Every structure is written in structure tokens, then in C-alpha cells.
């Protein structure tokens, strides 16, 4: 045994030194986080907080879920109010679904449907989109002869009722100027609307309804900017022409291009392919086109790449941290629930003792009897 003393001494010293270093570095941790329960009181060290393993409401540990106390019974549709208490399942064909809110399953109707009979057995059984007796809401009846259109009685201003539909007579090709009046090429060659001669359709023109009249017009997005309709037809593509962008004569600046009828890019943005981006802030084009910032995307739910001043970065969302320093897995630690990184990287709960981490704190409770060290 004597020969082992030096090693033992070294071990004790290094352990003690490490302990001192740990205590020094973790001084705030011991004071601020009572999860281990030890406190210095009146010259002695007393343990007055012990491990708590029961989950505090509304959290629970449910079978089949990962971790301890990770299920929020207030909002989990599979464990709504209690473990293994799922909300009723619905299909995409049923016009209703269930959400779990405050620990209760609640029925939510799909758009334009309502539960008018108050029975959950048949869900949201009534369509309120076009029912004159329930127009937009249960019992909201339209006047006699008035249609229910998109959840409201009658037609909006600017629309006219044609059968069960509301249309714009000024622009609807199927109801141009009057219900059922389809806009199409005149049958008679003598029709004066053949402005370029009987049967002549200049390039990029079509019969369209405008101002409630069916006339030969430029097919969008083309325009007749040179006023020679019967010659070269509608010669300008307003969606892409830099000299006629969005409108005849609207020229883009020298460093801009015309995209969907708009001169791009606006000042301060850079063209990257078909997009205008801010290379100072865009994580996909950070500092220059195509320079994407690495790291798991925000859809990971834990963190996301950033671009600040053209420099890439990566930030963790609140409650998450990059404890292993590996950017490839991003902010892998859930500080709210991780027993090994509870509230902060490296803050461990008593894993063997089954001490859960809830809301970033290792659960404790008062000891039945204080333990003195």
C-alpha cells in the first residue's frame, strides 16, 4: 500500500483541486440552483432540498414519449388532460378537427362549416357557405330570393347575381355586360368590333371583356405600346420589358431588370438569380449570392442560421443550446427538459435518481428531514 500513496495523494490533490476549481467556477451554480439541495448554513452544510420525481402540472411522463415530464397535458392532442387520453381522430374529409387546449379536446370547424345542432356526434354538419338558411353563421337567414354567396347574403358591391353566382359583368368573360353573355369573336364579318378587318386577329390579342364590352384586346401581359395594333399587334411584354415595365413607357433604371412588371431590384437589394435579396441579412445569400450559412435550418425547431452584416452565424432558439459544439447538429440540447443540460449546458440533474428537468430546472422538493454533511 505505501507505494500507492503518492498516486493516491496526486489523485486526492487533483480531485481536490478539480473540486475547488469546479466549486469556484460553479459558485453561482451552487447558490442559484438548489437541485442538489446542499446549502451552507450556520457553519455546517445542510441538505434541505431533495429530488422530486413527480411531474408538476401540467407536465407528465406518458408511455411512448421520450424523456421525463415532457408531455404538456394542456395542449397535446394525444394526451389531452391526461396520459393516453387522445382527442377524437378525424379524417381530411370531415369538415372538423380537434385541438387540445387547456387540457380539453375542443372541436374546430373547417372554413365555411358550423356546428348548428350543438351535437358533437355529427361534428360541424352545416355548410354556411351557400345555405340561405344558415348564411355565414347558424340561423343567419337571407331574405326571400336572395342568394348566400361565400358566407354572406347577396352580392358584394360591383358584383351582379347571375343564377346562384355573383360575377363582375364588367370583366367576366362568361358574363360580359349581362348574365350568360359569353365574350367571343363576333360571328358576323360585318361586326364593327373587327377593328383590323373581318376575322383578323393581330399577334397576342384575344377577345376579352372590359368595361362590360367584349372587344379585341391585348392578351396579358402584352401591350400595344407603339399604337400599331393592326400591324405588329401587342408587341410588348410588360412583365419583362425594361423600357415598358408594367406599363408602356415605364423604363427601369440601368441597374434594374423587369420582373413581373416591376423594376427590380429596389435600392439596397441585390439580384441573385430571379430574386432580390439583402446580402447583409439573407442566410441563403450572405455577403454574396449563393453563400448560404451552414447549420440545421430553422425547421429543426431548435435554431437557425443567421446573416448579420454579411457574416454568417448560427443562433439557438430560446430554450435550446449548442452544448456539444458541433454545428452540424445545431442546438441539440433542449435546456427546458434535458436532464444533462438542464437550464444550461452541463447542468446535470440526478439522472440515475430519475430527477426530471422541467422548465429548465431540476425538480426538487423539501427533504423530509434535513441531511447534515
Amino acid at each position, binding site marked *: 500500500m505505501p507505494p500507492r500513496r503518492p498516486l493516491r495523494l496526486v489523485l486526492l490533490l487533483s480531485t481536490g483541486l478539480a473540486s475547488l476549481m469546479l466549486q469556484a467556477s460553479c459558485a453561482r451554480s451552487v447558490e442559484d440552483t438548489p437541485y442538489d439541495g446542499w446549502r451552507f448554513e450556520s457553519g455546517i452544510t445542510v441538505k434541505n432540498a431533495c429530488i422530486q420525481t413527480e411531474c408538476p402540472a401540467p407536465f407528465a411522463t406518458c408511455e411512448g414519449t421520450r424523456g421525463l415530464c415532457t408531455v404538456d397535458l394542456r*395542449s397535446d392532442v394525444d394526451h389531452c388532460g391526461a396520459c393516453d387520453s387522445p382527442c377524437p381522430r378525424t379524417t381530411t374529409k370531415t369538415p372538423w378537427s380537434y*385541438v387540445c387546449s387547456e387540457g380539453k379536446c375542443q372541436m*374546430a370547424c373547417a372554413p365555411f362549416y358550423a356546428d348548428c345542432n350543438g351535437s358533437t356526434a355529427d361534428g360541424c354538419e352545416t355548410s354556411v357557405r351557400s345555405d340561405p338558411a344558415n348564411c*355565414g*353563421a347558424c340561423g343567419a337567414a337571407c331574405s326571400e330570393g336572395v342568394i348566400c354567396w361565400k358566407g*354572406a347574403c347577396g352580392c358584394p358591391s360591383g358584383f351582379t347575381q347571375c343564377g346562384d353566382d355573383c360575377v363582375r359583368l364588367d370583366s367576366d368573360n362568361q358574363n360580359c355586360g349581362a348574365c350568360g353573355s359569353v365574350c367571343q369573336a363576333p360571328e358576323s364579318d360585318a361586326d364593327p368590333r373587327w377593328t383590323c378587318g373581318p376575322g383578323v386577329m393581330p399577334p397576342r390579342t384575344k377577345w376579352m371583356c372590359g368595361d362590360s364590352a367584349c372587344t379585341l384586346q391585348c392578351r396579358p401581359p402584352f401591350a400595344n405600346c407603339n399604337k400599331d395594333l393592326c400591324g405588329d399587334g401587342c408587341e410588348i411584354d410588360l412583365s419583362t420589358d425594361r423600357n415598358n415595365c408594367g406599363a408602356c413607357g415605364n423604363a427601369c433604371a440601368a441597374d434594374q431588370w423587369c420582373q413581373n412588371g416591376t423594376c427590380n431590384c429596389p435600392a439596397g437589394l441585390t439580384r441573385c438569380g430571379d430574386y432580390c*435579396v439583402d446580402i447583409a441579412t439573407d442566410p441563403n445569400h450572405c455577403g454574396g449570392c449563393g453563400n448560404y450559412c451552414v447549420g440545421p435550418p*430553422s425547421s429543426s425547431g431548435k435554431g437557425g442560421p443567421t446573416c448579420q452584416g454579411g457574416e454568417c452565424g448560427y443562433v439557438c432558439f430560446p430554450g435550446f443550446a449548442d452544448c456539444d*459544439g458541433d454545428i*452540424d447538429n445545431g442546438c441539440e440540447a433542449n435546456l427546458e427538459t434535458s436532464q444533462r443540460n438542464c437550464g444550461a449546458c452541463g447542468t446535470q440533474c440526478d439522472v440515475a435518481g430519475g430527477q426530471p428537468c422541467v422548465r429548465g430546472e431540476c425538480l426538487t422538493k423539501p427533504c423530509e428531514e434535513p441531511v447534515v454533511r
Partner: protein
Amino acid sequence: MTRRLAGAWRAVGRALGLAAIAAGCANSGERASGFVEGEPDAATAASGQFEEGGAPPGTEPVECAEATTQIYVVATDKGLYRFNPRDLSFKRIGTLGCPTGAGTFSMAIDRRGTAWVEYTDGRVYAVDTNDATCKPTSFKPGQTGFDLFGMGFALNGDDPKEGETLYVAGTGLASLDTKSFDLKFIGSLTGGRTELTSIGSKLFGFSVDSGLVSRLNKQTGATEATHRTSAILESGGFAFAHWGGSFWLFTGRTTSTVTAYSPTTDESTVMVDNTGMLIVGAGSSTCAPITPPK
């Protein structure tokens, strides 16, 4: 270039991981949501933790500063704009610097000038309307029925001192606590895709599929009154705000049209035919004027 960046960031990430572990003890007493990145130095910028969205207690901006009385919009180009209904001008404040490659989806403005912006990845971010800086929140995305939703604040009572509540419209109406980020289901909505706004304590929804603006019961989600607008669009982007006694409707497929609807006269008027951008979120705080400007 991308490869080089990836390698460099991986190395920085590893180094920071050690730093994070060493700092673990020092921070162990802090709650997870309280981590503060502080000034974005090189280290934290590379792999930091954002301060949670919303101003920290004690440093909150005052309510109803001048800037909170206007309309803000976000477009698919991730630009945050201030829209002045008086002269119909848009002023670009900046590009949202949220840590995501997802697109913008919806927005609401609170009385202290924070824009709560939902992205297409379902996350909600807190954006400063002064400079478009962005912070993630601890809102849990993907909650059943509320993957994506419209948003709007309404006062809790006639007296602004009673506070305000953020309402969201997904599969039904719900309230969203901007401190705990708990979602509380209220009831079904009868309209289609819905955006929200308010006039004082009255909550309104705009369903672009039907062009209906509906006054909603804040306790049940039920429709209490409807207004018929001509802003109807069966697909595309839309947004909704109130200002000066009128509802401002932003609708479009590639670029947005701005329509003002007056509930007093029941008239819809196209104010801006082509904004040159596709607006997907709009918001006016409960500080915005509720009567027409004189």
C-alpha cells in the same frame, strides 16, 4: 465558397461548444429563456443564443409612440415597410434579419412597436419596427390547427390600461400570450383564410376568399356582424389592418393591390393598384387612430 464557409463555421462551432460548456456553470442558475446574446461579437454571432423576443422588463419602449400609430407591412421579399395611409407611400425600414430561410407569412403590431411576425416555418419572431432587427421567441410551432395563422391585437377593454391581447386565426380563433407563448383556443371561425385586426377592443377578421370583414366575438369566435368588401381573391397573398376608421386590405398574386373599405359608407376603394411587391402581413397597433384624419 460554400464548402470553405462550412468548414470554417464547423471549427468555430466546436470552439464555441467548449466555451459554452465552460460557461455552463456560470449560467446554470439562469432560466433557459433568459439567455442574452448581448452585443453580437464574433463568438456569439457564430453560435449564440438570441435573447427571447420582446423587450426585457424595465427597458420596454413607451406605449403609443408616434411610430406605433401607423401601418406596417411585410412582403415576400422580407422587407418591413411603413405604410402611410395619408399619402399612400411605403417606406422601407429594412430587411427582416430573422434566423431562418423560411418566408414571411403574417404580422401583428403591439402598442410598444414590436412586430410579431410569423414565418412559413410556423415560428413567431419579435421584430423591432424601428430597424427590422429580429429575435426568435419560444413559441412552439406546429401546434395542432395552428401551423399557420393570421394575427392581430385588440384591446382588452375600452380603457387601454386594461392591456391588449394577441389573437390568432388558424383552425379557429385563439389567443396567444406574448410572454408565455401559450396558445388558448377560443372557438371556430366560419370564414376561410382569415387575418385579424381591431378597432379598439373590437376584433375583426378579414377572409380574403369571400372578401368579408367580420366583427368577431372575442370569447367564442362567433361572427357578430359582417361587412362586404370587393377585395376577393381565391389564391394569393393578403393582409389586413385598420387605420383612421377604414380597413386596409392588401391582396394580390404577384404584386399587391391596396383597397380601403369604409364600414361607414360600405364602400371599397382601390387606393394603390400595384404596390410592386407581394404583401403577406400587415399590422396596425391599437394606438392607431380609429377615426378619419381631419
